[in-house]
């Protein structure tokens, strides 16, 4: 029997700057479909990916917001941000499209420690 592993996906990029955020989200959906428990951590500039009021059509890009909003349908509701990273961009949790848990920066190491597999794109 295979033991269930906890997967953490770390996001580090602002929106529209690379395909990494979308690629990482696609991993989240695929792994969730295989019943792997998935958590998402939006580090640093990646909190900007969660900012409300984005208008991706202005850049003729696909809207990642839709996929992010669909996460709950896939039973992925473990999303995390770091307080200090929100503050750096003068954001509060209300400015985000997802309902995120916030972590103190000092707790980051023990948070990561608890996972079995980490993918950091």
């Amino acid at each position: 029997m295979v033991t269930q592993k906890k997967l953490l996906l770390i996001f580090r990029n602002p929106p529209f700057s690379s395909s990494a955020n979308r690629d990482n989200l696609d991993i989240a959906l695929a792994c969730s479909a295989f019943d792997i428990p998935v958590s998402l951590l939006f580090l640093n500039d990646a909190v900007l990916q969660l900012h409300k009021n984005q208008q991706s059509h202005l850049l003729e890009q696909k809207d990642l917001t839709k996929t992010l909003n669909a996460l709950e349908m896939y039973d992925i509701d473990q999303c995390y941000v770091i307080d200090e990273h929100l503050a750096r961009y003068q954001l509060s949790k209300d400015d985000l499209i997802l309902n995120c848990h916030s972590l103190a920066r000092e707790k980051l190491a023990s948070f990561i420690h608890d996972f079995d597999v980490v993918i950091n794109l």
Partner: protein
Amino acid sequence: MTSSTLHIINKAASNSQLYRDCLDSLHDDDGVIFIESAVYTACGAEPEMFSNFNITAYALKTDILARGIQDKISEKITVVDDGEFVELCCLYKKSVSWF
């Protein structure tokens, strides 16, 4: 037309080495334009880092609107549309892109 340079930067300020190199390269009367992910630098306190220089800092409107941060842009920043970006590239004698 000036004899100065327009510096075009497109990364967020977390790329601090890129910003340091750009700052080191700023001549009197040069301009800086924040495009793509660099428009976040035009928010709040961040443009302070450019305040020691006699330069004008611009930010590209389309990229600001796409990111939904139009209400957060610092008053020190001149927001320009796509057409005005072209005009700036004519106004300044050359450009240096930082990416």
